[in-house]
Every structure is written in structure tokens, then in C-alpha cells.
């Protein structure tokens, strides 16, 4: 039927026991039969050369020993995990949040790079948060207020993202933390002395403002956020 020589690929496929042409040709063609034989011999030689013997007994022992060694390890890991899960709310959630937020305020305001997006333009800062925190961050127009926007960054609270806005009033710096309600601190506690703090809820978000300004200033800032000019004026 087939009167041409086999291709190198056909020879190798045959030696590798893959689908190949009808082998009747091999009975009549010494050249192709030799090629198949040479490939088969080569395969056998490679098999011999690549043999490294059985896996070392020590390796087999290490793998089978795992059974007795690993069970306690998993139990220990599970126990630690369970302890963390059970205790975390008690240890962390119930701790007053304000002292920590005040520490964050002092750290950030004192930093050389307090914010990651530096802009007085709310149209720059608001979209910057998209995809960085799991909620829309309200950034009102502060133009007609004594406040000015400096910038923003992402902060973490108990493993969840929150938004941070840095707002200026004259020479003062105000930190405004914005949390999604479900990830917000449950217990704010009382404000440490020497700083003012003010928190309010609006539209599923918790706002916490921290600054060394009189409390009245923070109330004015809250009003700027809860009654934004852009929504009031036509």
C-alpha cells in the first residue's frame, strides 16, 4: 500500500508505540526497519543511562514517618488558629480604638510622606481610592470652608482597608479615618487628652476625625462632610 520511506517522525512514533503508519512497509524496507531498530536501541540505551536506582530508603522513611509526626502538628496548628479566631474579638474588638487611631494620626502626620495621593482636588483623591478600599470614599468640596484637602492613603484596621484623608486647617493637620460600618471599630473609647476626636456615622460609614484643634473645628468638618455644598446648591 505505502511505497515511500517512513519519515523520522513516523519511525520515532512507531518506536514510542504511538499511532503510526501500517507496519507492512517495515517488512519490505531494510532501511526503515533499521531506523526503527536503531531508535528502539537508542531508547533502551537511554533507559539504562537514566536509571538512578530506587529512591533512597531514608527518603521513603521520611515520607511515611510524616503520618505520625504530622498529626500533632496539624492539631497544634488548628488549636492555635481556633484560639486566634475565638480570642481575637475579645482581645482586639473590645479594646478602645481611639488611642490607637490617635497614635496612627501622630505617626502619619509626623511622617515625611504622610499620604500616597497628594492632591487638593477631590476629583483626584476620590477616584484614587477606587479599587483600593471596598467602598466609595466621600470627598466633599471644601472650597468654601476653612479646611483644605491635602491628600489620602489607605490604612488598615484589624486587617481591613480603611480610607484616610489628611485635611489641613491653617497650620493644623486633621486625620479623618473612614471605615465601612462592618469593619469599623466597635468600641471607640474615650479620647486621650491633648487631642480632639470626633466620630459620626453617615451612609453606612464611620468617620473618625483626630487633630490638635478645638473640638468646634472638628464639628465644622463633620458638617462639611454630612452637608456637602455640592449637594445643597443647585
Amino acid at each position: 500500500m505505502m511505497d515511500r520511506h517512513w519519515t523520522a517522525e513516523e519511525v520515532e512514533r512507531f518506536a514510542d508505540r504511538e499511532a503510526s503508519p501500517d507496519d507492512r512497509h517495515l517488512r519490505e524496507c531494510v532501511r526503515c526497519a533499521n531506523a526503527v531498530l536503531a531508535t528502539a536501541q537508542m531508547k533502551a540505551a537511554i533507559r539504562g543511562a537514566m536509571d538512578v536506582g530506587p529512591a533512597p530508603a531514608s527518603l521513603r522513611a521520611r515520607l511515611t514517618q510524616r503520618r505520625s509526626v504530622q498529626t500533632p502538628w496539624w492539631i497544634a496548628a488548628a488549636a492555635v488558629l481556633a484560639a486566634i479566631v475565638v480570642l481575637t474579638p475579645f482581645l482586639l474588638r473590645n479594646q478602645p480604638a481611639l488611642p490607637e487611631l490617635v497614635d496612627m494620626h501622630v505617626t502619619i502626620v509626623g511622617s515625611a510622606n504622610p499620604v500616597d495621593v497628594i492632591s487638593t482636588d477631590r476629583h483626584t483623591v476620590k477616584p484614587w481610592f477606587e479599587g483600593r478600599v471596598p467602598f466609595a470614599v466621600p470627598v466633599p468640596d471644601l472650597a468654601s470652608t476653612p479646611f483644605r484637602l491635602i491628600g489620602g492613603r489607605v490604612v488598615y484596621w484589624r486587617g481591613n482597608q480603611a480610607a484616610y484623608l489628611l485635611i489641613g486647617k491653617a497650620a493644623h493637620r486633621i486625620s479623618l479615618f473612614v471605615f465601612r460600618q462592618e469593619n469599623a471599630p466597635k468600641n471607640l473609647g474615650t479620647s486621650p487628652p491633648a487631642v480632639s476626636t470626633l466620630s459620626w456615622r453617615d451612609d453606612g460609614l464611620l468617620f473618625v476625625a483626630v487633630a490638635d484643634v478645638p473640638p468646634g473645628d472638628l464639628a465644622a468638618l463633620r458638617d462639611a462632610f454630612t452637608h456637602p455644598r455640592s449637594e445643597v446648591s443647585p
Partner: protein
Amino acid sequence: MEDRRERQSFEELALPLLDSLYRYARWLSRDPAEAEDLVQEAYLKGLRGFGGFTPGSNISAWMFRILRNTFLTSRSGLRAVPPLSLDEEPELVEAIADGATPESHLLQRADAESLRRAIEELPVEFREVLLLSDVEEMSYKEIAETLSIPLGTVTSRLMRARQKVRKAFSRKQ
């Protein structure tokens, strides 16, 4: 216990592959100590990922793949494999079979040790197809599955690997 049962069935399926996996690890890393570490890590990963293994599917291709990925992300694996994918140049593949070349006769007489050295010098992509086909006797389909490459690439890579072994021998003699 669920975990215990799972580990038991994993070991029943995977432990018989130990010699083969060790051999593969040796030929990937070319270092006995590293090979042992690779195999141990692959078994740990296999056990951890066993929930994702479809019962009845090819456990050996699955374990080989885990071992290979473990190697590729190891330090020597990152060194061994060039960041660019292999070019499957076809020009090395002869059109017509020519089994009676002097090279293949030399090859027949070659001792295992010099052949082993010649294979060791091949790039890892060629070493592994030779091992999977000639030693592990995997079909092209199983090799394709193990290496996550198309069937046609298996054929051409295997041919190139053998071509390179023949060439190495004709140079040597």
C-alpha cells in the same frame, strides 16, 4: 477522621510513584540531595492539594506536574529554565528516516556512563522528555498532560532531544 482517610488514600496512590518521582527529580535537578528535598516537598504539596485531585484521573501525571512545578520555582529551577519559551525549530528534524547513520552505531556501542553525561548536558526540557518517554514509558498524551504542552510539541521536542543525543555522540567520537 476525614483528614486521616484522605491522607491514607493519597499515600496509597502516590507512594508507589516514589521511585519514578525521585528519578524525575534527579534528572531535573541533577543533584541527589536536592532531588530528595524536591520529592518531599512535592508529596507535601500533593497531600495538601489532594482535595483538588479528581479521583480516577491520572495520579502520576498529577504528581509529576507538582514535582515539576516545585522544581521550576526552586532556585536551581529558576536558573535552569530560560525565561523565554523554547523555540521548537523544525530544521533539526530530518525529513526521511535514516537509521543506519554512523551516529546510531556509535550510540549502540556507547557505554551507559558517557551516554548519561551526554544527557546531563542537555537543557532540562530535553532531559525530561527523554525520561518521561524512554524510562517512564509515558505516552505522548501523558507527557503533554504532565508538561502542560501541546501534543505536537511533545513529538518535536522528543525528536530534537534524540537528535541532540545523536549529535553529542557523533561529536565525541
